[in-house]
């Protein structure tokens, strides 16, 4: 059989249906001469309308797919991937993975593939209902019409809007020669906008599976309002301040924990901030951090790249370090079971928690501000980087809406500040948490963090930018 790529004219459907994905994976598994084979098909249709200076300057669509084959011979494995899904391409990728496996040194930690799944869990996996046809069917005309009122409003108020509206769909399918098969279609949309004046800016960002829920015009008004309100910014000297971090700023910090040590590989290698600290208190008592692919506000997939169902994991519970996430390799090393967090093969970074959820509090953002005598409201952080991995020490900048809080009110915009802070220290010094949580997706790592606003004392700003 020769598998063909789905018809390109279809709208409002995922890039591969279940049957189409199964056909590709079955064919490549049949073509593989390895003792055991894992095959992963990832496909993505994505369209993006990008605007700047109140006009559309970039408008793109791309239809991509990638088939990855991991071949195993004894204790040796090799991984090959291809974009060619014709019969020749499938044979070639299977043969190449096998050739790499045969040349590989023995790997004593290589796990067995995932067995066929529990049928009850499998049906739950397929009942996700995460694909929204209207998002996949969104047209360039509709995207342009959605952003047009915002661009006009910005121009009318002497401001400059830049941003992007993205719509698309995806499919992930995983199969192995033991009979495991898992398929997940999804849709995604994203609106982000920065509005600038000559000396200020404001920003909004929202992800939804259904693009009709993005509320582009009202979101744009938030960015417009922030840009206007932060005009003629003042300056505060570096030092320690009480801050109210909006949800995106919280996500900008907490998201790094996923890469700094909430995966079992870094924990086992002794590189994690959690290494040797399991069961200890590592943050303030009110902090609970989960990984939950099934949280309706997140965009998680119900299984991982080994086809293992995702488990809900409590990673930090009331400030106590409780768990890290596993794939089959780290689980084998730890004598436990995979939690369904395998990264795409060859998974050099090991398992990763892709859907972090910080348990919210009970205060509105306005209440957090109102309870602050003197402090700083931070809309978002930018270019956060790890200064010291073991200490979870980060540096970065505030951006697009930094305000002085005086006597419970926002009194003026501020020039942007550089911070140096430990993420665990921030969670230790958190005084109150917001109740409205928003998902923030890091597009380059595909980690989603669902977080609400956070009020933190003694947040350490070390520098100020003067333009």
């Amino acid at each position, binding site marked *: 059989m020769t598998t063909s*790529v789905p018809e390109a004219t279809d709208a409002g459907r995922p890039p591969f249906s279940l049957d189409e994905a199964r056909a590709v994976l079955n064919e490549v598994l049949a073509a593989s001469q390895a003792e055991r084979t894992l095959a992963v098909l990832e496909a993505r249709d994505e369209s993006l309308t990008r605007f*700047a*200076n109140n*006009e*559309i*300057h*970039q*408008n*793109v*669509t*791309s*239809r*991509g797919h*990638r088939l990855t084959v991991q071949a195993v011979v004894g204790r040796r*494995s090799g*991984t090959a*991937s*291809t*974009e*060619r899904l014709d019969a020749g391409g499938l044979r*070639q*990728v299977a043969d190449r993975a096998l050739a790499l496996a045969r*040349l*590989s*040194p023995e*790997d004593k930690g290589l796990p067995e593939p995932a067995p066929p799944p529990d049928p009850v869990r499998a049906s739950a996996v397929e009942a996700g209902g995460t694909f929204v046809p209207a998002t996949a069917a969104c047209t*360039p005309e509709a995207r*342009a019409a959605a952003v047009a009122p915002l*661009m006009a409003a910005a121009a009318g108020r002497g401001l*400059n809007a*830049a941003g*992007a509206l993205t719509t698309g769909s995806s499919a992930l399918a995983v199969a192995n020669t033991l009979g495991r098969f898992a398929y997940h279609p999804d849709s995604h949309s994203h609106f*982000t906008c*920065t509005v600038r004046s000559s000396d200020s800016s404001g*920003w909004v960002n929202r992800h939804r599976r259904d693009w009709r829920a993005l509320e582009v015009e009202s979101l744009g008004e938030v960015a417009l309002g922030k840009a206007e309100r932060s005009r003629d910014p003042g300056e505060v000297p570096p030092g320690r301040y009480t801050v109210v971090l909006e949800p995106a700023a919280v996500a900008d910090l907490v998201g790094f924990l996923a890469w700094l040590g909430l995966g079992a590989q870094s924990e086992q*290698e002794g*590189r994690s901030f959690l290494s040797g600290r399991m069961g200890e208190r590592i943050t303030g008592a009110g902090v609970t951090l989960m990984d939950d692919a099934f949280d309706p506000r997140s965009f998680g997939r119900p299984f991982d790249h080994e086809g293992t169902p995702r488990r809900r994991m409590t990673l930090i519970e009331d400030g106590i370090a409780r768990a890290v996430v596993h794939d089959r390799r780290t689980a084998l090393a730890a004598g436990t079971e995979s939690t369904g967090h395998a990264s795409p093969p*060859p998974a*050099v970074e090991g398992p990763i928690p892709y859907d972090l959820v910080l348990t919210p509090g009970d205060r509105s953002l306005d209440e957090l501000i109102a309870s602050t005598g003197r402090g700083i409201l931070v809309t978002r952080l*930018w*270019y956060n*980087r*790890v*200064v*010291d*991995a073991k200490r979870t*020490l980060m*540096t970065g*900048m505030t951006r697009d809406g930094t305000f002085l809080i005086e006597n419970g009110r926002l009194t003026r915009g501020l020039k942007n500040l*550089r911070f140096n*802070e430990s993420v665990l*220290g921030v969670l230790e010094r958190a005084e109150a948490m917001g109740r409205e949580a928003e998902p923030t997706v890091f*597009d*380059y790592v595909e980690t989603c963090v669902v977080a609400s606003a956070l009020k933190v004392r003694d947040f350490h700003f*070390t*520098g*100020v*930018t*003067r*333009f």
Partner: protein
Amino acid sequence: MHDLADRALNAAQLAGAAYADVRVVESRSQMVEVKNQRPSALQESAGLGIGVRVLVDGGWGFAASASADPAEAERCAALACRIARASARFRTKPIVLAPLAAKRATYETPLVRDPFRVSLAEKIDLLLDATRAMQGEPAIAVAQGTLRFWEEKKLFASSEGSRLEQRLVHSGAGICAYARDDRDLQWRSYPNAFGGQYEAAGWELVERLDLPGHAAETAATAAALLSAPQCPAGVATIILDGAQLSLQIHESCGHPAELDRVLGHEANYAGTSFLTPDHLGVLRYGSDVVNLVADATVPRGLGTFGFDDEGVPAQKVDLVREGRFVGYLTSRETAPMLGQASNGTMRAESWGHIPLIRMTNINLEPGPWTIDDLIADTADGILMTTNRSWSIDDRRYNFQFGTEVGWEIRNGKRGRMLKNCTYTGITPRFWNSCDAVCDAADWEIWGTANCGKGQPSQTMRTAQGASSARFREVEVGVGYGT
């Protein structure tokens, strides 16, 4: 490839495109990684796809597909035109491209030994040897070695008559040792962070680096860092080695010189730039000893090619001359706004991405100092080497960097090792504090394989040439004590 390009160009023009270009790109890559004697990655990847970019009614449209067949090429062309019409409805003025002479040509990365013809066994054995040597140091928890290779064959064809074929090959190699004790984690890389050194070159790069020969020293340095004193906090004279300075150049000169950032095209994501057009030809970006060029023609650079992804020939242009800011990185769309022609910096990550202004090779030209003379000339300072942390604001003004290793300099001599070195500053103030740049013997063209920009986000390989240089009155040791 040519047939696909023809079909797409014809379809685009029939659908009303005033301008169209097509890129058909076939790519492959290989990654070999060994960690603690285990093969942590043996991976190969192959890709083939087509991207069609059109101008209709003065607006851009782009459509791309991994299915590189004639019908899909025509679908992409028609869809790109439809998208362009949607763009054009919301433009205040039409996009106009700088003129470009049509050209037919080919270009290939010069290779001594094609890395895709080197056996996997040779590659694995090399990394096993290097990581085994690092594991001889007891404090080493993780000993890792990585080899990466990329090949890209691409055809560019435009409705103006250009037809350009290129084969670009990039190679990368490096090792890293992680040392830990009960309280600390430190690491040391060779020859650079982020997986090592990357060049537009073949296996000869790997041979030249001699990873096994540097493994023991790399591991010993990582272990020694555990007990090294903390970098002091204060204001100091610093000397940055070429590898660290290359990332400083990348972040604080390369990015702000991108004209699309300056014009606000990246305002929502990568950011804008403090190098606004009123500064062109006027701003004292650095001291008199600072000369920076964008050179897409220099050997071994990851930003070296025959033609950019708009078909513009590779060029060498001044960005900073004797400290004065004199030039931008431009494209056919942006250059006319300055009354110029494109200087050829548009590149796309893949067939599925639209080309953007990207750094080519941003090089700090060598100065007169030998590194030994520069250290001998420094009474009191810190030598910082190899990047560990990097952050800069959205206008590329306020930065903070950290390095893997530092050494005290006292009375012209290199002294004890320091750990957790950081420094921070404001870009033009920092470059104006530069009073010495080392010579060509100390100069290297350092590859950066992970430069991110654009929506959807694209990763690009760029390079920055640099030798060691000295900077006065820099704030150091920031961050610790938090």
